[in-house]
């Protein structure tokens, strides 16, 4: 390539020269944690927490999801920009949920006969 100019503007495109290799041990530990948390999900289900059951199950799932994203998908060691990009997806999902729920909470909850 003709261009050997090192002053390039694309941010983060040449931040770290090689690829980050996540140690073998971390993968095994993360998988173990995921399996433990899966058992925890079922355990809490047996406790019959009533109204708390759904939030607890969701919370455990969120922790598991975070582990998968950070280590298996390597987001922890990735570009800041890629982290922001992936975060954006969840943010706009929340927007979709927020406004749809706002409408339905103030409408259907009051009129549904089912």
């Amino acid at each position: 390539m003709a261009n050997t100019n090192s002053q390039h503007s694309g941010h983060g495109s040449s931040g770290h020269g090689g690829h980050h290799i996540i140690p073998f041990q971390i993968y095994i530990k993360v998988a173990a944690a995921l399996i433990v948390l899966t058992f925890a999900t079922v355990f809490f289900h047996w406790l019959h927490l009533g109204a708390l059951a759904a939030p607890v199950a969701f919370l455990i799932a969120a922790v598991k999801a975070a582990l998968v994203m950070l280590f298996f998908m390597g987001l922890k060691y990735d570009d800041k920009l890629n982290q922001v990009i992936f975060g954006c997806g969840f943010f706009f999902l929340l927007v979709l949920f927020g406004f749809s729920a706002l409408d339905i909470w103030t409408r259907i909850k009051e009129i549904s006969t089912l």
Partner: protein
Amino acid sequence: MGTTTATHSGEINYINEFKGLKSWFTSLDHKRIGLMYMISVMFFFLLGGLAALLLRLELLKPGGQFLTPDQYNQVLTYHGAIMVFMVIIPGIPAVLGNFFLPLHIGAKDVAFPRLNLASWYVFMFGALLAASTMFTSKIDTGWTFYTPYSIKTGTAVVTMVLAAFIMGMSSILTGLNFIVTVHKLRAPGMTMHRMPLFVWALYSTAILQVLATPVLGITLLLLVAERTLGVGIFDPALGGDPVLFQHFFWFYSHPAVYIMILPAMGVVSELITTFSKKTIFGYTAIAYSSLGIAGVSFFVWGHHMFVSGQSEIAGIVFSFITMLVGVPTAIKMFNWLATLYKGSISFQSPMLYAMGFMFLFAIGGVTGIMLAVLATDVHFHDTYFVVAHFHYVMVGGTLMALMGGFYYWFPKMFGKMYNESLARLTFIFIFVGFNVTFFPQFILGAMGMPRRYFDYIPAYQSLNAISTVGSWLIGTGFLLSLYVLVQGLRKGEKAPANPWGSKTLEWTVPSPPIHTNFEVDPIVKAGPYEYK
């Protein structure tokens, strides 16, 4: 792969370097893919335009003319679906964007050339699938596919909806490609704040394409599931909610409105500064207002649903947030005006279209604020006022800018000049015709004429007749444009590298550019609009 045999015409460029149809259909060159999109979009524009002319002809007089009510609904659906999904959404990004984004930032190509070609094939597959329903069972739902009618009607909704899903995938791939291109492929020295404003607009559009289209995807899949499996999510009999369909649909389709208009604003920024021979006023404000519009667009979709039965509280919240859209939009308007101030303005055909854009978009924008107000919207909703409003934005805005951009970049794309006086004449036809067609519709709407109907009461006759005559003027204008294009291609003089005296990178290379865009990789040392 074609062979390199272009020596007879002197210089080698992206058009003549490779020969044969196969070299086009397998080309990974963003410029060639842009041209392929251009031909496809023009074809679908012709179809959608014919449908529009048919509708206006039917509405010339009250009572049925030559279409049955069912046929009218079908023509209306095809006009809307074709114009939205196959013309206005891909129009500027896929044609002009594909061609000029890499040139603007000093790159050799987009980040993923193969994906770029694939997105054209995906688009064509979806578009032809959609068109195929015209020969099987014409659909009559309107382009919005509202439930519960879209679940009950016996027409080819599933095919059409899957086609829209596929075209959505193409749109996502284009957007994804553009975002990575902007992030990663800028030439040395081309900082984000030295990018042309057209690139900023395409960048904001691409973000919308990636973030909004997937929700349309799942909505359409759920509609298919509803029709085939009867899952009940949108069916009140099972406790589902048809209004939820509208929420999901407009979560995409409102940002899609900005997918249509943001690139147009980018084109206009280029035109205004070039033909005023003056540095653009408020570069940063214009650049970030594009992102601002993109951001706000995700919070306002409920203003399409004021009379859908959504809760009053939701309506009030959406009404207030919608007003915010006016802020970044006005920022752009005022910066363009300030750019014109004391500039050396030359009224060449691209500039005429840019001025036309500003005039028509101002009307479209201000009537938009009227519709954002919950109380007035209840009166105007589903009348011709709304029809006029969004045509002022989508045709008066996006198509005007597309035409302006097309006349501006034509010399660069094809290396030929066109007939300038004829080009100005096309503007006059389209601009006058547009106002004659759509301004009366504001009055008709205020008088209460409902939209989407095949018939109307005699009181609305005279304004409808004027509107129909206007549609013929617009049609003439576009046909004339086609003539200008063909004549320019065949007999036009050779275009210089920079016919307008512009400052952006694409004008530093020969017209038309070579296959790899730049002979020497550019190193950027200044902003895009340093005129004085």
